[in-house]
């Protein structure tokens, strides 16, 4: 594949990142951020970094001034902007080493910049299709909104076929400027022999609203690290997820709600429906800085155990250093009660359809919070695709 010339700053950054990757130790059992995690999945031996994935864009008509280009083109044409926002902060949730690997190898992805007071109504959609076998790909999505701007972006991750094992290490940087509304949604439907690490970092400015949604359906193992930093007063962040692991799939979710300014609020809702021998880990942290008064932070992880062979681990955490703070965190694991099933059956709904109806409703509760019909439909379709395999 032809390589375009990258700016010097970026070439330097990639050199540094290569060195960083070597110096960062591999995660170990002792790391709090990898507790209950499956470290065996981090053996990437035999995989080669490559532009294995095919990337397709589906871009609606855009108002003047909006930049929406492939990442490599952005490096060439909007170097300053990319430099300003690209992976500004160190990941805090355990994947520093893999973020460095991403940085060292990233070539493709999407760059979106929406200038002040410009609204993009329809979602911008990117589809990453993993191809070839034993390849590693590093898609990057960087979305920046100016003052009072609005945009929504959908990232899809899938595999070209069912048998080729690949690894995808994706990073998405979301920077929501003052008063803006930024919605991001990722739908992960890799094949069952591939692995995924997704590192999400969201910065929310004054009076801005950011929503980040992750739907996990595929992959033998997926690790999601989501960090939202509420930087400006009045910032609001929704962190949402719905995942449906089945068989021997394992999903490992780590979240961080960082309230760095007063009058900020964050709302996290993760919903997992687990089938078969699936396993999930959820570890969530809320941090309220000194001075970040009048903060509301909510964190909820709900697991619906569809089979008693599945396993869900939840580890909520709180650190509050300010006053006048409303925080709550909780996790629940429940099965569908016999009474619910009986009730649905007593209305003529066959048992498997009754269970499906409840599981669908369970996922939908997180999806509805997206507040964007096109994205909600896209996620619900992925939910149905998953159900059709069960």
């Amino acid at each position, binding site marked *: 594949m032809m390589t375009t010339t990258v700016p010097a700053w970026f070439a330097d950054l990639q050199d540094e990142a290569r060195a960083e990757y070597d110096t960062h130790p591999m995660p170990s059992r002792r790391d709090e951020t990898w507790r209950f995690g499956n470290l065996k999945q981090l053996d990437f031996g035999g995989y080669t970094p490559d532009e294995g994935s095919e990337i397709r864009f589906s871009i609606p008509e855009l108002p003047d001034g909006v930049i929406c280009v492939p990442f490599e083109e952005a490096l060439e044409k909007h170097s300053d902007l990319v430099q300003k926002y690209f992976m500004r902060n160190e990941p805090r949730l355990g994947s520093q080493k893999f973020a460095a690997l991403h940085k060292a190898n990233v070539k493709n992805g999407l760059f979106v910049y929406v200038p002040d007071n410009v609204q993009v109504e329809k979602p911008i959609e990117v589809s990453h299709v993993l191809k070839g076998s034993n390849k590693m790909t590093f898609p990057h999505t960087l979305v920046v909104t100016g003052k009072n701007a609005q945009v929504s972006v959908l990232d899809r991750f899938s595999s070209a076929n069912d048998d080729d094992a690949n690894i995808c290490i994706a990073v998405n940087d979301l920077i929501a400027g003052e008063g803006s509304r930024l919605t991001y949604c990722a739908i992960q439907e890799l094949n069952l022999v591939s692995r995924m690490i997704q590192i999400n970092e969201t910065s929310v400015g004054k009076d801005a609203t950011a929503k980040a949604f992750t739907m996990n359906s595929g992959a033998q193992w997926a690790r999601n690290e989501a960090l939202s930093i509420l930087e400006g007063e009045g910032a609001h962040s929704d962190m949402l997820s719905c995942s449906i692991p089945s068989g021997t799939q394992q999903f490992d979710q780590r979240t961080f709600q960082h309230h760095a300014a007063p009058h900020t609020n964050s709302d996290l809702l993760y919903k997992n429906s687990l089938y078969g021998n699936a396993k999930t880990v959820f570890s969530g942290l809320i941090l309220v800085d000194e001075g970040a008064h009048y903060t509301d932070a909510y964190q909820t992880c709900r697991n619906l155990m569809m089979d008693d062979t599945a396993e869900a681990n939840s580890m909520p955490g709180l650190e509050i250093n300010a006053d006048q703070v409303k925080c709550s965190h909780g996790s629940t694991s429940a099965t569908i*009660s016999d009474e*619910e099933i009986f*009730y649905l059956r007593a209305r*003529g709904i066959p048992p498997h359809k009754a269970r499906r*109806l409840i599981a669908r409703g369970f996922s939908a509760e997180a999806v509805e919070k997206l507040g964007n019909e096109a994205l909600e439909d896209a996620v619900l379709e992925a939910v149905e695709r998953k159900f059709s395999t069960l």
Partner: protein
Amino acid sequence: MSLVIKDLHANIDETQILKGVNLEIPKGEVHAIMGPNGSGKSTLSKIITGHDDYDVKSGTVTMDGVDLLEMDVDERSREGVFLAFQYPAEVPGVSNANFIRAALQARLPDGEELDAVAYYKNLYSKMDVLEMDRKFTSRAVNEGFSGGEKKRNEILQMMMLEPKYCILDETDSGLDIDALKIVAKGVNAMRSEERGFLVITHYQRLLDYIQPDHVHVMSDGQIVKSGGKDLALELEESGYDFLKEGELANA
């Protein structure tokens, strides 16, 4: 054409609850069962519906000649049995509209899709009869509903599913007089030659609004007395004390 219960004996765990119930509800008739708490009224209704907490020891339940006890719960419902529960379950996450839609969809042959537009039109018109706010379509089934709202929701389902035999278990409890009239209006609108009703109630009040053709008294797992609708009034006057005093012989 009727729902026929013959010599039904049933246990829960080792305890005998039903001790030989005999009852026939022909289409076109409304039968009421009254009786003190704990006499087995809800047990009877749940056994007809197919709840598996109960062991049927002997006896039969047939609907228009078909053996109900051989069928699964959902199959019985699709065949035309409906129970408005005394204590309806809550189903978090599933909207009322999607629930009723799934129930109707389950009655269609494979590959046939329910017409969504016609469905909502029908649903709204039934809700109007029951004076239910439209917001109940999107709320999770019975979750956070008041007692009265749950009962109305049961009748809504009954009106939507148009069963052949309807059993109403203490639908009046939790309803104030206005709500009771509304629910009765819904039930009465469904009375027809094609449909049988079994109305279970502790109080005579409901029967002022849903006038029964026959009234039965249940006590300790048996029907101990049957009569016309006047029997309900008599019971209202004299209560169930006669059951203890061995006046059954005069029944």
